[in-house]
Each structure stands twice: as structure tokens, then as C-alpha cells.
């Protein structure tokens, strides 16, 4: 493929690589892949400036299927490698794909540090609440007590919630989506692309083989309206098939509750309005227990803060403005004597 291709507007097809896609038939990864390929041309980034970096897992095979630059690295380390790519060349649009195991089990630390540093990379975590590639052990997002191959009498671990973890790590962009929800995926991918810093997206992804139907309670078309709450900045946090339920807060106990508009004198004005710049609210939305509460999706939190790469670029520019590099002088710096 040559330069010429880049001058015309790219299409989804341009982002499809020549490799056979080898996920299990029916895997949620397919839908995410298709949607990402669809969104990519929208970004207006030159084709050759897109890089996908991943760790290890079913999800992490993603870069092979994208016709962009791609690096399938080692388990859990994608954020650190992606950071190297971005620092080496800030022109690049750097995307990371990781799984709940790759990103939160072995790779939790790199994720935390990427998030707090706010390096301008976009992280998609495919959360299927299981280790797919190694054939079905429980992951850090699996439910307490879940029976799997490695826990026949139930996982003794309490799970971590990716979004509230990210918020606790001072992330600047936290969103949630569902593998099959094209519209939602599209929205958050575009928002993430525009965010100048680390964008973290948790995508609920169905593993048909080892954890089928894990999210049916809210992801299934029939459940979606009643059990998903689409958070939109500046709009009330309303959900329900009738769009008549909303979230309210008790300011003394700081507890959330579901209120039904029209019942007991509740009006839309009583419903909390989503403020994506409020991390406390994001924290509460992320942690709502299901099914007592709906699952919050969309952009839970977004707030700009200087990105790591930006700060480093400024420092380098400042250093270059101050010092003209002269290697000979550098080598001879300090006390010298001549014989």
C-alpha cells in the first residue's frame, strides 16, 4: 500500500488486515473489531499514523486484524510499551487493547501508572470476566464464588471493578460500553480519540465459550433499556424502558437511590444530572450494585489535565531552547586539563 491511498478518505475496509480472524464463532470480540474498523476512518488520522498495541489474551490478538501498525507484545505490558511508542513519536495515534486478565491481573500496575500519568494513549479493556485464551480460569473481574476450572468450589477472590479502579487511580477519562452496542461504542471511541490523555474504556465482552451470557442481565437487547443507564454529560441520569427511573442522592448519607418519576412526587428535577467532570459521581456510578441498580455506560468521567507526553515535550523543547547541543563540549565538561 502506498502513499496515494492516504490522500483519499479511508473506509472501514482499509482497516481490515489480510489475516484470518481466529476468535471463536460468536465471540463478542468480532463486534468490537467491526465497530473499531468502522470508527477509525472518522478520526482523520493518516493511516500510517495509527498503532495498535496489545498484551496477551484472546482480546490481545486484535492488532493482527487491524490494517495499521500493530504490536502484539507480552502479557500485561502493553500500556508501558504503548507509552514508549507515544513518547518516541507523539504524532502517532496509539491504541491499546487489553483484557480483564491482561490489563487488571498481571498488568494492573502498568494500567494504574498509565492512568495517573495521563499519557495520550487510548485503552480498550475487553472485559469478559474470564481468562479466555488459557481456557476458562476466573479473572479479577469474575464474581466472588464463581466456579471455574481453577476454582471448582468457587473463586475466593472479591472482584475489582475496572472503572472504579481507574477513577481511584486518577484517570482522566473513563467510559463503559457493551460489545454489541454499535452506537455506544462509536460514541465513546470518538470521544476517547479526542481526549488528550489516557482514555480508559471498559467494554463488556461476551465469551461464548467460557462465560457465555455473563452480561445478559443488562447487555441483552431485551434487558438493555431497563438495566442500562446511559450517562450523558449535562443530562439527568434517567433510565428504564419507560424512561421514568432516575438516580437520586441522599446528601446526608451520601447514598444513591433509584427514584421513579411520577411516583411519590418525584419529578425530573429531582434526578441527578450527569457531570462527567465530577469524579465522585463517576465513582458512584461505576460502583452501583447490579441488579438493584442499572449498569452505567457511556462516558462516566472526563476531565482534561496536562498529558505526560505534552509535559515531556515541553521540557525537551525548553532544554533545547536553553542549550545548543555540542557533543565535543559535553564530553569535555567538568574539570579538564591539557597535556
Amino acid at each position, binding site marked *: 500500500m502506498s502513499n496515494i491511498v492516504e490522500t483519499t478518505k479511508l473506509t472501514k475496509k482499509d482497516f481490515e488486515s489480510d*489475516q484470518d480472524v481466529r476468535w471463536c464463532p460468536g465471540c463478542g470480540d468480532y463486534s468490537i473489531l467491526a465497530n473499531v474498523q468502522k470508527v477509525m476512518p472518522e478520526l482523520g488520522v493518516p493511516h500510517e499514523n495509527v498503532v495498535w498495541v496489545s498484551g496477551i489474551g484472546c482480546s490481545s490478538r486484535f492488532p493482527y486484524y487491524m490494517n495499521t501498525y500493530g504490536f*502484539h507484545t507480552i502479557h500485561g505490558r502493553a500500556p*508501558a510499551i504503548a*507509552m514508549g511508542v507515544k*513518547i518516541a*513519536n507523539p504524532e502517532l495515534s496509539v491504541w491499546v487493547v487489553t483484557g480483564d486478565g491482561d490489563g487488571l491481573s498481571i498488568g494492573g500496575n502498568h494500567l494504574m501508572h498509565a492512568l495517573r500519568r495521563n499519557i495520550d494513549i487510548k485503552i480498550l479493556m475487553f472485559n469478559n470476566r474470564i481468562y479466555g485464551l488459557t481456557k476458562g480460569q476466573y479473572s479479577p473481574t469474575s464474581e466472588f464464588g464463581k466456579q471455574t476450572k481453577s476454582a471448582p468450589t468457587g473463586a475466593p477472590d472479591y472482584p475489582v471493578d475496572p472503572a472504579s479502579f481507574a477513577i481511584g487511580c486518577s484517570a482522566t477519562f473513563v467510559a463503559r460500553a457493551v460489545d454489541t452496542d454499535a452506537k455506544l461504542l462509536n460514541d465513546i471511541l470518538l470521544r476517547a480519540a479526542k481526549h488528550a490523555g489516557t482514555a480508559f474504556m471498559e467494554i463488556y465482552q461476551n465469551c461464548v465459550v467460557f462465560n457465555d451470557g455473563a452480561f445478559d442481565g443488562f447487555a441483552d437487547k431485551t434487558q438493555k433499556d431497563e438495566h442500562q443507564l446511559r450517562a450523558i454529560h449535562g443530562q439527568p441520569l434517567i433510565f428504564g424502558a419507560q424512561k421514568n427511573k432516575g438516580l437520586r442522592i441522599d446528601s446526608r448519607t451520601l447514598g444513591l437511590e433509584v427514584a421513579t418519576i411520577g411516583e411519590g412526587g418525584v419529578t425530573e428535577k429531582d434526578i441527578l444530572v450527569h457531570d462527567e467532570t465530577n469524579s465522585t459521581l463517576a465513582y458512584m456510578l461505576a460502583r452501583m450494585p447490579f441488579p438493584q441498580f442499572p449498569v452505567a455506560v457511556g462516558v462516566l468521567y472526563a476531565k482534561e489535565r496536562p498529558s505526560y507526553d505534552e509535559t515531556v515535550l515541553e521540557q525537551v523543547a525548553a532544554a533545547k531552547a536553553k542549550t545548543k547541543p555540542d557533543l565535543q563540549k559535553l564530553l569535555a565538561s*567538568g*574539570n*579538564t586539563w591539557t597535556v
Partner: protein
Amino acid sequence: MAQQAQPGTVDSSGSKVKTLRGAVVRFAGDSGDGMQVTGTQFTAATALAGNDLATFPDYPAEIRAPAGTTYGVSGFQINFAATDVFTPGDSPDVLVAMNPAALKTNGKDLKRGGLLIVNTGAFTPQNLKKAGYETNPLETDAVDGYNLLAIDITKNTLSAVKETGISSKEANRCKNFWTLGLMFWIYGRELESTIKWIESKFAKEPMVAQANVLALKGGWAYGEAAEISHYRYEVPAAPVAKGTYRNIGGNQATALGIAAAAQLSGVPVVFGAYPITPASDILHDLSRLKAYGVTTVQMEDEIAAVCVSIGASYAGKLGITASSGPGIALKTEAMGLAIATELPLVIINVQRGGPSTGLPTKTEQADLLQAVYGRNGEAPLAVFAAASPGDCFYMTLEAVRFAVKYMTPVMLLTDGYLANGAEPWRVPNVADLPEIDVTFRTDPAGFHPFLRDPATLSRPWAVPGTPGLLHRIGGIERDYNSGNISYDPDNHEKMSKTRAAKIAGMTRDIPDQKMELGNDSGKLLVLGWGSTYGAIREAVARSRERGLDVSHAHVRYLNPFPKNLGELLTRFERVLVPEMNLGQLVKLLRTEYLVPAESFTKIKGLPFKIDEIEEKIRQVMES
């Protein structure tokens, strides 16, 4: 070099000055006594006087130990001479002990008959107790056999600086300059450069500057006044090559090498690091060289540090990382990725005492086998080693040169002794430095990520951002041609052998093994690597002076070995391999060449003494 009196000259005061070939001096005192500054200033003046020299500091393991304790003693040793100097010296000829703890920990090292200068002002009952002395050693036979010069340096300093009106606490801190003044007098050094240094260092505290200058002059004056001119020596200038010199430590040289690599190749460096003793100073130095095309990234751990460097290499910059001991161990998995994906990467291992946390502040050469063999799968890694502080500069350039030429990681081994030791270094002319050629692939025609250069077997460096070269690589075995995932059995064998052949083929560019000293055949070859260079060099020189048929060669390219090494070994009746480990290079030699090379080891966290190697050579020649 023994402090032997020679027919001397007469100094300004009319007293006889004995001429020496060289001397070893050690300054030792409490961490708060400023011994590192004293040593560094003495070094600068000695260098200006034209001597060859080498130095080694000995920091306490604790950050700031309580005053007066033995584990809080800080030392600095310098070896200077009228001839070539290769090590900071074995036993000191002169020991300056600023307090009882310094005497306690260093006294046993002083040469019999050596000069012992002590600050009696610090030999208080309290300090004696802290040092673990029951009685004052200066009053017992503990100091018999030394030339004791017992001076109340504290009191002398206080009176020297009195006129400044400085507080007595601050006055007390000038002791080290008083001592330095005395040492300058003994060895006939100029005060000028140190006075200048003091004035610029304390520019914002003129009173402190004045006091230190007065102390310095006071020490000198004491020498002139006291009847100690029999202790006065002269060490003539060494016949060194013309040029501009500076003093350089190993970590400093490594950092300069990295900056130079960025400049010479025109490709900026991304240096990923996580602090660890004794490698951290490379990070510190480099973090000030942003203008030279070096971006330092302090990561959350060593895995992330090597990974950020790999990411940078993938994106077309020079990815470099440095660590030590446990940190290097942690990089193991990721180094395998760089080997598999054939990306350039330099990993600097400033070796320290192991295993595990081991002896973080001490030196050792026990990571060689790990460097060569320590990864899962057949994961060949080029391994180079620097032989002296200044050599760290050149070997860093070599590591980068091979990494980019062969598209592969290179590990450079240095160690704590090189890192902290220092030697005068002739500043190279930038125009004389080796070129580092980097070609990025840009032509899409016929491109494949694993299309190899037929000579080097190196794959193209095709970086994101280049139109038309979109491709994917990864840690799963790659197809020989397309680079796509391949589980094909024959492909795996072909790729495994190709990766091995690529590293083995570096011998094409590796200089032939040369002799450091002696003939290239004979009775005994002493073969070393890394920081043992100086001790071996000097021990072989002395043995040869004694008429022994012994030669010295020093291996800088450890994997692969220079192509003539095997043949060279066969030209000697015996091969002796001194190492600061339990015998590692010797294992590589035996396996590679089936030669009965003999091991001579020391694993004490300390470098070899020249004497130890000399003695071993004697034994071997006699047996």
C-alpha cells in the same frame, strides 16, 4: 606501587623532598566529614600536576548513618603515579583517619610502615566508644609499625578560621579542607584550583568560602611550620599522551556514551529506567541531557522501564535501559520479546553483589552467565563488557552500533566498581568517534517486516508513521517471510537458527581479540573481562618485570567471542581466568573451546588487589 623513597629534590623551604614513583592515599572519615569532596579535590590537583591516577570512593551502605559509627565511615582512595596507573591501588601508603571509626574500619588496610594521619580532636571517649574501642588505640601498640602523625585537626581548623567569625559548628565543617591543605603540602600540590572551586561552590555564602580557604591554607601552613618535612614527597608527572583530559567515572562515561550515540546516529534516545543502586546515576546524568536528544522516562518498575524502551525502539528511537541485580532479572521476559521481534535495544547491567538483593553497594561480576543464557527458549543475546570507567563510553557506543546494525538487543555489562571508580580520561575528538549508521526502511516495494539483509541477517527497521509499510509483529513465532503468526514446525526451526546465526555472525564486525600485554603465545595467558582489567594489567606487568612469561588479554565481546579467541587460547600452555564471581567466563570458554582454562575467583564485593593476582600468577607458574 610501593612508596619508595628515591633520590630527591629540594623544596622551597629548603628541605629535601623525596621523589616517589607513586603513592596510594586513602581519606577516611565520618559521612559528615566531607571525605568525598576532599578526595575529589585532591584528585583534581593531582591530575593537574600531571600524574596518572585512578580513584575509588567507598560509601556507607546507609543513607546517613549516625555520626561516629563504624558503618557511617566514608572513604576515598586515590592511586597516582609518574607511570601508568590502572587501579585505585591495593593497600594505601597513606591513611587519613578523621575519627576513631575511620581508623577502626580502615587501619588494617594501611601498609606496614605507611603514614597514618589522625585527627586526635575526634578521639573523644564518646567517639572511641561508638567505634568499639575500649582504649584509645593511639595510646596502645595498635599503631605500632606505622608512621603516626597525630594532629588535633579540629583545634587547628577552628583557630585557622577564627577570624571569619563563623559559627563553631560551621567552622568545624572546614576540617576536611584543613586536612586537604596538609596533604597538598606533603605532595607539593598547588592550592589555586581548589581555592577557585571553593569560591565558586560557596559563592552564595562568602563567609563559608572564606573559612574553607583559610582552613586549606592553614593545613598547608601547618606542614611548613611543623617539623614534618621528612614526610614530604614528590611524584613526577606521568608521560601521558597529549590531549585534553578529564576525570571520569563509569556511570558518567556510560551516560555520555548514550548521549554521544544519539548525536552520532542522529536518532534520539528514549532511556527507560527505574532507580536502583548502583545504576541510578546513569538516569540522573541523562535526565540533564534532554538537549542532546535523550528523553529519560522514570517508570514504575524495571519491566515497564525495558518495555517503554522497546516501545520506543519499535517506533524508531534508540531504546536504552539500565539496571542492576534484581532489576535485570525482572527484565528477562521483555528482553525475550525484543529478541523475538528483532528490535534494537541496549540493556546496561551495572552488576552488583548477589544473589537476590545481595550487596547492593558492592561490586561483582556474577551476571555473565545470566546475560548469555538467562532467558526462556533459545533467545540469543549479544553481550559486551567495559573494562574501565572510560571504556564504558566506548563500549556503550559499540552496544548501540551493534544493536541498530543487527536489529537486536545488546547487553552491556559494567559493575559497581567501574560505576563508582574514576580515572583520567582523554576527551576524544568527536570526529574520530565511530559512525553509527541507521537506515530506516521507507520503500514499500517488496517490503516485509522480516526481509533480511543477506549479510547481517538483520531485518528492516520499519517504523510506525511510515506510509506504505503497515505491518504487525509480536512475540508469537513469526513467519520467516511475512512476519505473520506461524506455528509451522520448519519455520520455527529456521527462525530459531536464523536468530542464532545473526548473533554468531556479529564476529564479522567484532574486532579480533588483541593482547593487552605480552606475547601472543607462551606459558600463561591471563584472560579477564570487565572491571578486573586494571588489576590484571598491573599484575601481569609486574610479573613480566620479574621475568615471567605471562601475557594479558581482556575480552570485551563476550557473546559472541571474537573469532580468533579460540585459536589464541591454544597458543598458551595455560590459561588463567580471574573473575569476581565463582567462575563464569571460564565456563563459557570451556564449553566453547574445550580448553582447560583455570578459574581464579574472588567474591567479596571488592575488586581484586594487584597483589592477589600477582601472587596467583606466581603460584601457577611454579606449579
